[in-house]
């Protein structure tokens, strides 16, 4: 199969906020600008670094180091804990700026968007996409603040647009077309390509592919049969040439919450209390999105690097917090707890829309947990999260803090 590079006009933009959380904190506090700053899950020594400013990155402070390691690299590093509400606000403002240019705006995570300019007013008026990009950069500064910068990449598909956005960080603006594609590949390593990790690089190397240019020139049969062993090879063949194959929308499959325990424990009673709070959070999201679930999954990670996980389908709908808790509690009591638990996660799956609501046999009786859950949600909506909680969750207000879901922004 011989396929030319896609030489259509590049109209797909990938745009992301530079060092998102750290930069928003630097915007909010001018006294920490141009200084090494990290946002960490906790400000205790073992708290994982979630974002680091460019100044911190230059000192080698990367994601998933812990605070102690970050301080070893730079004793002056400023450690902040996350402020999810502020980041959600920044996300909404970022999105609003982009929606002024076109309706085809797809969030990829809390700090990155794909913008499709096909048929957009801005381009139809004859403006070049690079001029539109400069305008967007300016609008973002006006909306989020003068310190905030974004990387912009433009090309014919999402993959190349993302690649372009990472070429000149921070505050970059690059366009990849059929004309400069080979030249750009020539300057890169395989792992510079979005989606190519160490394992994929090893597979490619085994097939004699050691550079992005060799990857581009590899025949489709080789990618399918020798490297990726299936259709994925064809997808890469298309992707590398600038053809769009990644604009697939995935529906919601599950809702889940997880918690990394600050105080690791084997105590089932304590784990049950944490589990209840995770179930409440999961239930709130399940109900506010108008779903019921017909399956539940519980997983535990242990201090000795082992883990335990179990999931099962349920014969009745899961809707209220009590439903989730009872099912997950059953799983918890089956768990083999071999060491102190470090992480606990609950997920509900097999989702079905609640509308139209099926009338239950126990509606309006004291067995009607559905109406009870909805009434409790209404109270919490009015008076604040966790105002009304199950007794098991008493005095747990600050345990399991609000967190930012990096990848999933569908509920923001």
């Amino acid at each position, binding site marked *: 199969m011989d396929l030319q590079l896609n030489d259509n006009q590049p109209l797909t933009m990938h745009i992301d906020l530079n060092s998102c959380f750290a930069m*928003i904190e630097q*915007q*909010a*506090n*001018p*006294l*920490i600008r141009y*200084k090494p700053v990290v946002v960490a899950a906790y400000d205790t020594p073992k708290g994982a670094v979630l974002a680091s400013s460019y100044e911190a990155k230059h000192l080698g402070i990367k994601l998933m180091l812990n605070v102690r390691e970050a301080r070893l690299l730079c*004793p*002056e*590093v*400023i*450690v*902040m804990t996350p402020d999810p*509400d*502020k980041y959600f*606000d*920044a996300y909404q403002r970022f999105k609003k700026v982009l929606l002024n240019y076109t309706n085809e705006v797809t969030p990829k995570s809390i700090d990155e968007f794909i913008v499709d300019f096909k048929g957009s007013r801005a381009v139809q008026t004859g403006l070049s996409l690079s001029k539109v990009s400069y305008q967007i950069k300016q609008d973002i500064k006006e909306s989020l*603040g003068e310190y905030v910068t974004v990387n912009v990449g433009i090309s014919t598909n999402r993959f190349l647009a993302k690649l372009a956005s990472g070429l000149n960080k921070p505050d970059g603006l690059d366009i990849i077309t059929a004309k400069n594609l080979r030249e750009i590949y020539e300057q890169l390593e395989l792992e510079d390509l979005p989606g190519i990790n160490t394992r994929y690089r090893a597979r490619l190397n085994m097939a004699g592919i050691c550079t992005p240019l060799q990857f581009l020139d590899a025949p489709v049969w080789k990618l399918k049969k020798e490297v990726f062993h299936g259709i994925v090879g064809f997808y890469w063949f298309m992707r590398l040439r600038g053809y769009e194959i990644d604009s697939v929308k995935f529906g919601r499959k599950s809702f889940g919450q997880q918690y990394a325990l600050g105080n690791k424990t084997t105590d089932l009673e304590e784990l049950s209390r944490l589990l209840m709070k995770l179930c409440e959070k999961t239930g709130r999201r399940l109900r506010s999105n108008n779903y019921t679930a017909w399956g539940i999954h519980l997983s535990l990670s242990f201090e000795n690097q082992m883990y335990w996980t179990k999931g099962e389908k349920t014969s009745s709908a899961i809707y209220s917090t009590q439903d989730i808790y009872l099912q997950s509690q059953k799983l918890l009591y089956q768990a083999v707890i071999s060491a102190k638990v470090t992480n606990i996660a609950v997920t509900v799956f097999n989702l079905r829309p609640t509308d139209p609501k099926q009338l239950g046999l126990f509606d309006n009786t004291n067995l009607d947990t559905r109406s009870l859950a909805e009434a409790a949600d209404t109270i*919490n*909506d*009015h*008076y*604040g*999260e966790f*105002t009304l909680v199950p007794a098991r969750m008493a005095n747990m207000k600050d345990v399991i803090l609000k967190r930012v879901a990096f990848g999933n922004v569908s509920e923001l």
Partner: protein
Amino acid sequence: MREKINEEVSVVMYYSSQKRLALPHLISWQNKDYAVGRIGYHHTVKVGATLHHIFELVDKEDILWFRLNFNTDNLHWTLEAVSDGLAT
């Protein structure tokens, strides 16, 4: 260093009808007045049905950063945190 305060404070706020902007102007905290300089970030948070305005700003001398919370239900101001911009 950033320090949690969570104290109610006195705040002078002004509204400009021309700019259609309402911003804190002066903060009185621990018997000292701080004139407001740059506003770093302003966003809102809903706690139940109550809307809170969060202002993060520095004083005119660029020495201290303040995080102020304005409760639109009772119109009270709370100083949530201060920072001198240093690590420790």
